């Protein structure tokens, strides 16, 4: 049999080669399938380390499981764990402590961070050097921060008490920043502010640098005072950045554990016991797995709900 070769056949083959798709040719997969193939490992990992534990935790929160008594049968207790938590005065007290800590520390960080950003934004001669110095605290590990501030606050040998004594005349060993009911809550706020104000500064600095110069030039042409420029230009334009900083810091501080645990262990008494410390104690010291799962779910829903409302407000501010 004679083969008939079409004169254009060679050209067609070149065209086919140009449209060559190795996946389709070799595996017979569509672009969409390939996309899924690449994304699948990430999704699988996410399901394995995030979603599955979350579902498992929801299941456990309805049980009586206590790991220190694993010989007891695990019972389904319905909403008992949730009602126990929500009617427990101690838990509400810990939530109040957490809320006070979050509000005070974030407010201070916003004021100080924004103030530092305004200063650094002036671009003076050594501003890069000072920026680096200011950023140092947030680069440290919370464990390191907790430990060295514990030493700084030591009533008899700590430099903090010594400086306070020098400035006020109060004997350095007569007060303990981490051990007194009136001072301990402010101590954790102080250390957290020291550590995280630079982070707020960094976000505000990005906001300040995004404001075009011509707006200020126009304001100057209109003879607007510096204060007027601040209220009418700087603050509104930095506001979305500030709100973002507040969101990040509030979420982080709601979960705060390591630094406070090292500084005060939640004491004196339960004065600085944040809800994360309560959760850790219930889960990994008392081994009340069912109860602590319920508490974790309640905290998750609280943070998630509050963050969602906040993001909606943030979007409105941005649209203005």
């Amino acid at each position, binding site marked *: 049999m004679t083969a008939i070769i079409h004169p254009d056949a060679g050209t067609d083959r070149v065209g086919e080669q140009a449209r060559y798709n190795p996946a389709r040719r070799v595996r017979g997969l569509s672009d969409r399938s390939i996309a899924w193939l690449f994304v699948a490992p990430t999704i699988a990992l996410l399901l394995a380390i995030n979603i599955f534990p979350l579902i498992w935790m929801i299941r456990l929160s309805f049980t*009586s499981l*206590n*790991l*220190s*008594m*694993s*010989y*007891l049968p695990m019972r389904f207790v319905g909403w008992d764990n949730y009602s126990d938590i929500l009617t427990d005065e101690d838990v509400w007290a810990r939530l109040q402590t957490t809320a006070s800590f979050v509000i005070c520390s974030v407010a201070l960080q916003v004021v100080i961070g924004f103030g530092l950003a305004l200063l650094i934004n002036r671009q003076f001669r050594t501003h890069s050097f000072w920026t680096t110095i200011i950023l140092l605290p947030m680069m440290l590990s919370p464990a390191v921060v907790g430990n060295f501030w514990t030493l700084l606050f*030591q*009533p*008899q040998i700590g430099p903090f008490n010594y400086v306070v004594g020098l400035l006020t005349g109060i004997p350095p*060993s*007569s*007060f*303990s920043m*981490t*051990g*007194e*009911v009136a001072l301990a809550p402010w101590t954790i706020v102080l250390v957290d502010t020291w550590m995280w104000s630079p982070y707020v500064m960094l976000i505000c600095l990005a906001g300040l640098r995004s404001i075009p110069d011509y707006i200020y030039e126009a304001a100057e042409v209109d003879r607007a005072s510096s204060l007027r420029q601040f209220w009418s230009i700087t603050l509104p334009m930095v506001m979305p950045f500030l709100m973002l900083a507040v969101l990040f810091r509030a979420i982080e501080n709601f979960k705060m554990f390591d630094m406070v*645990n090292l500084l*005060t*262990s*939640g*004491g*004196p*008494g*339960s*004065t600085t016991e944040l809800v994360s410390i309560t959760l850790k*104690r219930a889960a*990994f*010291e*008392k*081994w*009340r797995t069912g109860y602590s799962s319920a508490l974790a779910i309640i905290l998750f829903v609280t943070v998630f709900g509050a963050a969602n409302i906040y993001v909606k407000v943030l979007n409105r501010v941005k649209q203005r």
Partner: protein
Amino acid sequence: MRKSTTGIWSKWAGGALALFSGIALAASITGPAAAQSKQLTLCWAAWDPANALVELGKDFTQETGIEMKYEFVPWTSYADRFLNELNSHGKLCDLIIGDSQWIGGAAENHWYVKLNDFFAKEHITMDDFVPATVLGYSEWPKNTPNYWALPAMADAVGWTYRKDWFSRPEIQAEFKKKYGRDLAPPKTYDELKQIAEFFQGREIDGKKVYGAYIFTERGSEGITMGVTNVLYNFGFEYDNPKKPYQMQGFVNSPDAVKGLEFYKELYKCCTAPGLTNAYMQEGLDAFKSGQVAMQMNWFAFFPGLYKDPNVGGDKIGFFVNPAGPKGHFTQLGGQGISVVATSDHQDDALRYIKWFAQPAVQQKWWEIGGYSALKAVVDAPGFKKSAPFAPQFLESMAIVKDFWAEPSYAQLLLDMQKRVHDYVVADKGTAQQALDLLVKDWTKVFKEQGKTVASQ
């Protein structure tokens, strides 16, 4: 001239192949050898006696060829770390020196190997050990012949004092003038408080000193292990001796309330500032730096303190926990050694216990800084003179009481930590309220555990 890329890649590939082959060859040679050498991992807290145990373990290795590996964790995370390990059925530890309060949970959850058959086979009898240590470290249920550990490290709360300060004529004269008696180690808590008040804020050798150091730690077990020394002696009971788990009127009895108030008074009047969250190490630091006249701490640390160049030797004295109006007790410390049920080397671990139980080994254990619980060692004629704190140790071991050793001990302990710290350190509520709340907390825990708790 440009080198051939193929050539470079060939060289790299060849090098990598050679390296890989070398490693594989080395592993194949050393692997079986490593597998052949036996090894045991012993888990305990990181403290002075652990160093002595490492020293002692060298004899075991020499005798048996079994290498000893150690996992020592600081006290503040000791319970968290190892209970987590046991809970998750981990294989890190073959042998564990677990705290006395763990014994209930360890037995009920089958974390430890039951040792009765092994003891019978090896002719190890618990009659050879100090009764308080057998009850505290080995038995579950309590007062039954079910053994889950061999008493390994006997310990109790005791006190150290600055003998050199106490013996100064001018201080003695001033004390006698003020209180009408000689300045001597206190026999009762009232005497202790008087002495502590006397030293509080006093200047000695140009340095301000404080009366007493007591446990106040919040996170793990500190303040509970401190306050119980006073509570027991004022009449506190964990429950009705005739009706188990009936706590109302025993935990929060008027005597117990007085005891708790006394501990707070002692904390307020006579301790160094800033010790609001302080346990063993802070006590050692306070004593070694010459800050305090008297220190509450575990006997385990006393050999080290006696050797201290600044405050040890002739400068240090020891006394038993003082008595109170309703009795004379002290808090039991110490631990037993157990074989972990998930260990793959249980036979070797049991061999270690057999070796450790020998009188000669126990004698050496005491000599190098451990505290033996073997009667043959502690009842020996020369024992009381073998160390300056030996008589006090013996006396203390005869009057010890321990915290709950129930499987739910961790919850019971943390509840007490919270209630006592809230009252003593944070000035929250009254002693009566603190103990009433404690009864409420403990009742809830026991009910969750399935116990019947009578209210009256």
